[in-house]
């Protein structure tokens, strides 16, 4: 165990090399090209197999009061999907450091700079969401149509009209702005304390950080649920589930943990963060294992209660995903369960797996990809319906967002020492041994 106790220096700068920048630019460029190809194919009607399906089902689409499907909807739906997904990953960085402060956790301080770097991407996803909502709100969100609220209109929907106190454009936009401003603002404060602590030392910043971390947790306790209703649940406007907020939080959380872990391992393999040893990885692995099971728990509880009570207005949600739209969402539905429960459960089961880089990376990728499918199955049926699928647009958009996110994280990592060297818990963390 001697290697565990050989303490490396706490002075380490991360260098965001031009080679890395070049690769990320190529990634973004490739993503843009893929999206463009996908858009061209969709615009010219190639690759959309839904026409036969629609004709096969008669005029079912017309009944729902849709304004006819535009190929751009799929583009916007993808933007929205990735924006929601990466908003979650980013804000979980803040969530992670906040609850670690509140719980006085010591072990995590050694890699604290990684979750700390993640929320910097929030303004990007926030702006993408606002722009998407303003440009394509009518295509993505059924509730934005005014005639639903007009009793004289043939599209009048008394149920949706009853929700207008919550689902109306001004209040919705205010909420989105409030979420991002609150999350990002509180992160800036904590980040600032953390950087000041590097320069000045002392426990003053630590004490203040605990206070602001607690404040964030209070804010996030409410906004994590309401944002899940806004970003995802309101797409299927009629449908409702009290679990949905915590379910989305569970999904975001475990994804964020996987991203943190993957980043830590990647940096370690490149020679950084040598003070992070297999004990820290073991704990991160336990976190991913436990919260994968937690996600499954809330997924199953929500599904089981709706299945069991068998109320039509609730079961329709799963019916659409399971057999609706020609069954195109059935595969993502099962991939979701497999990658997010079965896979991490088996891969992360043993102690040795959690202490081995390669197994951890496999589990991380499973979780990261799996939860993309989670959001995919929640967002796509209500936005693009039978026009959904996996084509160049989907892959390209993931590439753009993922490379953008990595760029943002790398920039933040390069701005500060890789270890929070004056953190009061850092000594505990580098001697972490379980």
């Amino acid at each position, binding site marked *: 165990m001697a290697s565990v106790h050989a303490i490396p220096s706490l002075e380490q700068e991360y260098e965001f090399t031009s080679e890395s920048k070049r690769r990320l630019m190529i990634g973004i460029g490739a993503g843009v090209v893929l999206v463009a190809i996908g858009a061209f194919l969709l615009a010219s009607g190639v690759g959309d197999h839904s026409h036969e399906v629609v004709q096969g089902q008669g005029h079912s689409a017309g009944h729902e009061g849709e304004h006819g499907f535009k190929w751009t909807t799929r583009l916007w739906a993808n933007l929205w999907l990735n924006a929601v997904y990466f908003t979650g990953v980013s804000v979980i960085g803040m969530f992670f450091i906040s609850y670690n402060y509140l719980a006085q956790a010591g072990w995590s301080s050694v890699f604290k700079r990684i979750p700390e770097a993640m929320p910097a991407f929030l303004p990007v996803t926030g702006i993408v969401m606002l722009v998407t909502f303003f440009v394509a709100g009518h295509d993505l969100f059924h509730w934005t149509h005014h005639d639903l609220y007009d009793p004289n209109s043939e599209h009048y929907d008394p149920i949706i009209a009853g929700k207008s106190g919550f689902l109306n454009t001004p209040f919705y936009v205010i909420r989105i702005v409030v979420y991002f401003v609150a999350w990002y603002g509180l992160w800036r404060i904590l980040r600032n304390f953390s950087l000041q602590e590097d320069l000045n030392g002392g426990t003053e910043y630590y004490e203040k950080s605990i206070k602001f971390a607690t404040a964030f947790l209070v804010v996030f306790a409410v906004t994590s649920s309401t944002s899940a209703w806004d970003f995802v649940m309101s797409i299927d406007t009629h449908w409702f589930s009290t679990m949905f907020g915590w379910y989305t939080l569970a999904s975001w959380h475990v994804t964020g943990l996987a991203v943190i872990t993957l980043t830590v391992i990647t940096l370690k393999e490149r020679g950084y963060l040598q003070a992070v040893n297999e004990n820290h990885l073991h704990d991160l692995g336990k976190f991913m294992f436990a919260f994968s099971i937690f996600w499954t728990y809330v997924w199953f*509880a929500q599904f*089981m*209660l709706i299945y*069991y*009570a068998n109320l039509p207005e609730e079961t329709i949600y799963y019916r659409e995903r399971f057999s609706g739209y020609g069954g195109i969402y059935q595969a993502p539905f099962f991939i979701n369960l497999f990658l997010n429960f079965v896979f991490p459960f088996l891969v992360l089961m043993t102690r040795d797996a959690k202490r081995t880089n390669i197994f951890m990376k496999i589990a991380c990728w499973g979780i990261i990809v799996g939860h993309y499918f989670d959001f995919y199955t929640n967002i796509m049926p209500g936005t693009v319906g039978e026009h959904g699928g996996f084509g160049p647009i989907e892959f390209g958009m993931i590439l753009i967002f993922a490379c953008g996110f990595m760029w943002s994280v790398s920039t933040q990592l390069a701005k500060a020492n890789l270890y929070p060297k004056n953190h009061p818990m850092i000594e*505990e963390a580098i001697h972490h*041994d379980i």
Partner: protein
Amino acid sequence: MHVTSSVRTPLVTGGKTYADVTEDVSRQVEGRPTREWTIAFAISVVVLIYGTACVFWTWWEGLGVWGLNKTIGWAWDITNFVWWVGIGHAGTLISAILLLFRQKWRTAVNRAAEAMTIFAVICAASFIVMHMGRPWLAYWALPLPNTFGSLWVNFKSPLVWDVFAISTYFTVSLVFWYMGLIPDLATIRDRARSKVSRYIYGALSMGWNGSAKTWARYEYMSLILAGLSTPLVLSVHTIVSFDFATSVIPGWHTTIFPPYFVAGAIFSGFAMVQNLMLIIRVVFRLEDYITVEHIESMNKVITLTGSIVGIAYLTEFFIAWYSGVEFETYAFINRATGPYWWAYWAMMTCNVISPQLFWSRTIRRSVIWTFVLSVVVNIGMWFERFVIIVTSLHRDYLPSSWAMFHPTLFDISDYIFSFGLFFTLFLLFSKFLPVVNMAEVKTIIKSSSEKLPKSVSGVAKGERVANPTFNKDVE
């Protein structure tokens, strides 16, 4: 090398040596019962006898002695059941989840909390057996072949899942608690002066010899049982919540129930642990082990879980409106403003508003405040179950079936029975078994003491020092 950060607060005060821990904790196991203990025990036994008589009368006469009616077929019985099961959650949370999270403060409170769990689950089970009406047929709840019972159980019913969930939980909690006791029982065996107690504690400690190998097995066993118990903690109250949520009764059918019930259970369980520990630490003079830091940590958990429960209340209320389902909306407005408004507001005040006082550092470090608020929390959690069960049932689908529930003497007395049972068992535990896990407290002496004596392995400062029977060399 193990490092403890300087910002961490000490968890053991008074400069204790290992021998002091043994001495301080074993004192009341080995000594004669104190006067306080005897009085408390006598009261508990009297209450238990009265309660037992009432429970027998309930069985003899039939459940008609309760205030149930055709509309409200579940009231105090199930309320009490869920309340006790909920209280039974904190023990395993402390012993299992806090062990996995390596929380050192758990060492001083885990033993008593686990004992509380076991007794609370017994009390909860007593209400199930009570409301069966014919306790001699309780085995019908098990899937036995038809020759033993009337019918094969209905596996589609969450009530049957409850039978499995709670009995599994009880078994694992009991094993976990007992395994943790073994090293301490061996300590008491080794110190025993009379032949009888040496024999009894010797048999109970199962040949524990304290070798490195035995300790290694103990550690493995703790982790494995913690890993098993963690999903069990969640599953028990999840399935209790399924008893309601799988139905289509407005106010019961809501998907957030499982995690919200679990949070509520931990909330009430920690409040009960606070009540018990605050008394124990004074009566048994254990203030150096159960410090203000422990109380504060538990109050933080209470604030956290209380706030989670609060968020769940608001979520339910919001979604009831958002859903546009008029029955659901009515059920919630009726809760807050209908004939049972007082129960609803008692629940809201006790569960959501009062724990917020713990945001004040002074209040959450005050023994008096903690004790009072913990009682308030448990009153609130009883009302929560009452609100969920009775308020959702009392407005039936037809207005001609609308009814109110009026508890009878036997509703109340059967509830009192469970207090008699609980405190009798808990007092017996606190007299005959060490209430603090000595072995585990010793593991944090070096890292978490306020000040260390010159030699932590020195002899005890207590009265036995003159005649240290634990020291084999003297004999």
